[in-house]
């Protein structure tokens, strides 16, 4: 079931992209940016608006790594795991960060305070290892810098 507020967001997202060709991704981005995730229950509503099947919309939402079916933590740490960051020791930084933050890559802390996840390339490859913390880029990071950025 969609909460009233969620339904309002979905309707606004659909209305905002009414003239848009190929509107599925813009609508899903709009919903995720307003709600922090894409609740399963919105997919039939979006599907109907786009005259597509629920299965198709589920296929779209589940294909892309960005769309979450549950909210992320209040702080979101995205640590790059790609080659340029590997060359600057991100495997070690990841292990140390996991230890320090008390959660593994891909996990959200039980109190909902923090999500730590992998990302593949932020285009910051000349100041690796790199991360995005709540959307803000950080270069040459180590576990201490990540912990400090989320107040740990």
């Amino acid at each position, binding site marked *: 079931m969609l909460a009233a507020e969620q339904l309002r967001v979905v309707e606004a997202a659909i209305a905002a992209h009414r003239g848009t060709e190929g509107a599925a991704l813009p609508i899903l981005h709009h919903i995720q940016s307003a709600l922090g995730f894409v609740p399963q229950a919105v997919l039939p509503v979006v599907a109907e608006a786009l005259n597509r099947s629920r299965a198709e919309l589920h296929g779209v939402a589940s294909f892309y790594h960005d769309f979450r079916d549950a909210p992320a933590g209040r702080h979101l740490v995205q640590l790059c795991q790609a080659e340029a960051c590997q060359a600057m020791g991100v495997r070690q930084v990841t292990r140390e960060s996991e230890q320090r933050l008390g959660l593994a890559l891909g996990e959200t802390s039980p109190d909902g305070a923090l999500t730590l996840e992998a990302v593949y390339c932020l285009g910051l490859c*000349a100041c690796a290892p790199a991360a995005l913390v709540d959307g803000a880029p950080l270069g040459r990071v180590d576990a201490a810098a990540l912990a400090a950025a989320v107040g740990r």
Partner: protein
Amino acid sequence: MTRLFLPADAFALALGAEAVAAALQAALPGLELVRTGSRGMAWLEPMLEVATPDGRVAYGPVRAADIPALVAAGLAQGGAHPLRLGAPEALPWLARQTRLTFTRCGVVDPASLPDYAAHGGLAGLRAALALPPAEIIEAVTASGLRGRGGAGFPTGIKWRTVAAETAPRKFIVANADEGDSGTFADRMLMEGDPFSLIEGMAIAGLAVGAAHGYVYIRSEYPHAIARMRAAVLAARAGGLLGPDLLGSGRGFDLEIRVGAGAYVCGEETALLESIEGTRGQVRAKPPLPAIKGLFGCPTVVNNVITLASVPFILANGAAAYAAHGFGRSRGTMAVQLAGNVKHGGLVEVPFGVTLGELVLEYGGGTASGRPVKAVQVGGPLGAYFPPALFDTPFDYEAFAARDGLIGHAGIVVFDDTADMLAQARFAFAFCAEESCGKCTPCRIGSTRGVEVMDRIAAGDNVAANTALIHDLCETLKFGSLCALGGFTPYPVLSALQHFPQDFPQETQP
């Protein structure tokens, strides 16, 4: 009034530029602070510049804590300080480059269309508006420009194919889904000189008869997305987009689309699927997108740097561009130095420079100070080359002849602590993570590759399992629909070929 320039490029932001900006505002109330892109010297970011009567003077890398001392040293007049670098364009790293496409990046205010025009912008579009479409295409063909996304396909031929199609609608799509690790040229250009991409797309639209374009930008680039969105609004207001391009009565407009974290959407047909709002799965070719692309219409899909190189060609002539280069690779390449490298950043040079010059002379070797063990050229699907191949000229054909590729020209440097078996395993694991699932070799072969690599690492039947890796790579290379599966063998086989010491050898039972 003091006029200062501080990049708002993601490199600078990642290294503390916002704190520097705040410290500057506090120390010099009333100053004019222009937020530029980056000139591409990542190790000097945040690099602050001040306008003086003798030109700009640079300081870097500047931290917020340095600002009081810099102000006391006479920053506003370009005063002496240990961080003072002098005239930025005279720095050897920049002075040696040939900046045709990135000439304005880090110099101009990327939010200002008048500033763009004052630095040579719009001249290409003006020239194109005075030419019949066939002559625009002829200029691009004669320049020798090839697709900078990786495939190196001649841009003029692609445009000619689209121009020859008769259709009610055609599209120009800029591929800004720059997912290869070690690459950031598209990002830097969009953040530092967004109007050049828009101008290139408008010229492409005139050339092939397309009135509408899309820029598909990956979601991992929030600052580039914001810059491009602002630039589109400014371009519409200033006549660079809209129904009446520069008063010509001819129209072109575009919209920004944002990806959603799928590497495979950098493949052009998957990208088109994604714009259409479906799963980003690769289409079988033919039909080529030039014949049947976005929404079934003839479509030009070009990389950001390809399109942003077009205004120079139209403004200065094909010969001015083709005069640079090597063999069949004409013009300049925006090479990106990344990973474990002392002087990382963007190096725009004519094709033909050797890999060694790039890594050792521009790059200055590793950041760690240890010997270079390997460089991966061309992203996660590129080969690992040892220093023994540093004499390879940067050229599509020369890299292919050595079982490598230049791709989007990212170079990731590794020092001697790198474990090449782990890198080969990662290539399969990344392919498995990012496979769109449409073709079997990529969807299943990538996972089998990880498993076989783990068996080799454990010393299990090494000879037989190594043979199996070769066999699997053969299947991936020739049986995959797109470059994700088709090129994953490059990093795997090059690691095996050039770094056998990192792989267990067969032991007698």
